[in-house]
């Protein structure tokens, strides 16, 4: 058993992936020297020639990965911050997500684009964004957003092995914050499955990334008050684990969906719609969403950032109201 941070789990998985398959390589800005968050630290020495520093050219980082993956390589691209991915959106929308469909499955795109997302680091408007809602609208793409180190490790391995393009979201605030004991080998984890992290009968909280940890902390304190929460770690946002979502919603009858992205058009709307469509008769309260306010960018000032981000207290308040409904 070893204790790993999220960052160490990512680095471990990258090393394992490079080790396991000679077709894998890493490309991105500053990856050779370890990258901004040090996720690729030490890999260049272990795998000479398998890490490629790119210029600042995000659209091409993704586009080049598509071309290479199409022709038998397994690129693992890094976009330094999720905020910088937007110029590559076209490559995801117009090319990567429809690759298999367009080629009638004749060509696969075994590529991963990893990127650090989320706030809580005083990054302000260009270093704090949640981007998942843009990408979960692209059938053909997979979107993975783990919360715990062990899942980061196993799902990153699974993403590299997957024949489809995967957007792998790493919450930057959790990189060094969240630790976990991890076994020797990466567990077999399946993309497309969520996990019930905690069972409780009063309501279910759905979350991912930093918000999953905040939700667990809220659930812990609510338990002391006699409110018992089920907490679902969504893990994969596309394709979504509909079965687990509906099963937990039916069991508890009350649901709270939490995300850090802004509310309107946020990913929570999809979960709310699924539950409303398929678990309506089981509901004892209106579906509740807790998200960032609808303002265009994460403000820099400390107090404003704190106001913007949902946290354990806001989650506990919302859950209490819901439990009392």
């Amino acid at each position: 058993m070893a204790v790993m941070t999220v960052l160490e789990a990512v680095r471990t998985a990258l090393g394992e992936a490079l080790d396991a398959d000679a077709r894998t390589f890493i490309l991105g800005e500053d990856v050779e020297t370890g990258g901004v968050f040090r996720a690729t630290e030490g890999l260049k020495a272990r795998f000479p020639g398998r890490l490629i520093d790119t210029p600042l050219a995000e659209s091409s980082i993704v586009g080049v990965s598509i071309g290479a993956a199409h022709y038998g390589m397994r690129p693992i691209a890094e976009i330094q911050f999720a905020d910088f991915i937007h110029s590559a959106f076209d490559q995801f929308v117009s090319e990567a997500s429809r690759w298999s469909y367009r080629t009638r499955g004749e060509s696969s795109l075994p590529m991963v684009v990893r990127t650090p997302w989320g706030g809580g680091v005083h990054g302000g408007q260009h270093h704090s964004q949640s981007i998942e809602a843009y990408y979960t609208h692209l059938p053909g793409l997979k979107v993975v957003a783990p919360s715990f180190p062990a899942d980061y490790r196993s799902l990153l391995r699974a993403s590299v092995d997957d024949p489809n393009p995967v957007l792998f979201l790493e919450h930057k605030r959790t990189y060094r914050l969240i630790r976990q004991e991890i076994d020797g080998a990466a567990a077999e984890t399946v993309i497309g499955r969520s996990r019930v992290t905690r069972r409780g009968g009063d309501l279910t909280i759905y979350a991912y990334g930093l918000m999953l940890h905040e939700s667990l902390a809220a659930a812990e304190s609510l338990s002391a008050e006699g409110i018992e929460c089920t907490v679902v770690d969504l893990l994969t946002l596309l394709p979504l684990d509909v079965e687990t979502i509906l099963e937990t919603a039916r069991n508890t009858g009350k649901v709270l969906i939490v995300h850090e992205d802004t509310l309107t058009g946020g990913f929570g709307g999809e979960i709310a719609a699924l539950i409303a469509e398929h678990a309506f008769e089981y509901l004892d309260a209106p579906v509740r969403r807790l998200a960032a306010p609808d303002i265009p960018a994460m403000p820099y000032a400390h107090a404003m950032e704190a106001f913007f981000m949902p946290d354990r207290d806001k989650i506990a308040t919302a859950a209490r109201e819901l439990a009392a409904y």
Partner: protein
Amino acid sequence: MSASATRQRPAAANGVTPEQMETFLHQMMLIRRFEEKAGEMYTKGKIHGFLHLYTGQEACAVGSINVLEERDHIFTHYRDHGHALARGLDPNRVMAELYGKADGVSGGRGGSMHLYDVSKNFHGGYAIVAGHLPLAVGMALATEMRREDAVTMCIFGDGSVAEGEFHESLNLAALWKTPVVFFCENNLYGMGVPLKESLSANIATLAKAYKMPAATINGMDVIEVYREMKKAVAHARKGGGPYFIEAMTYRYRAHSMSDPELYRSKSEIAEYRKRDAIERLKKAMLDSGALDETRYRELEAQVEREVDEAVEFAERSPQPALSTLYDKVYVEAGQ
């Protein structure tokens, strides 16, 4: 802090009067001290997030921005404190922005990378590398359409040159003959990657390929920067279209406060420090009699006071009120 006060005086032999030289010296010293202090305050936990210091590059901002008139416009990137100060933004309010306070130039919403003061035609620092180049071309297009006699200066780093927007913007500016001065601060690195490993071409040659005049100059010589910028602005102002300056410079500090600097040697940094722009100008002024040690020490004391005052101002300034968080998500109709 503007050079306009001295603009009317007769030019000295190198095209710069002794008074202008003193203005340049003062501004460069102010930026240097401001940045050192900002770094210190970051370490003390007063400033958060991502902070990119400008020390080493002062001559670029001071030599170029002092050529601009008030009616001219500036867009810049995230390493923007020096540009803001050279443009005459209030150091107190710039420091307050780094602190995320209500009196900051962006009301605490922006922080270090997003300084903004439209009253100075300072249209912002931008942290999406190269994302602001098309904005500057659009600004220049608008000044043309509105028949305004204004030049737009667009400042960016060498790292921008590989981005698509760089090429699209140079092409458009040349195609439409918009009055833009592209000012590339080539400090040899984009974060930890040396330019020679991220660019297959030469920057000024690329600019020339888009059919605009381009010059590579010593960006650690404020007089040289000033003189080249004068040519550039004159060219753009008289309808000649865009002009490109590649100013060779060097940043003394890490890329940002969290960079372990594994990509360059201490001896390389020491080598560039020997070419320091402030020392160079100081020596030239001492040699020519435009400055003496007493005056130099007065200037030192003055910038110390200015920077201390900026810190006190930032400390005293209130946190932005949470009630303002939703303000101005949209502009009201008719506003």
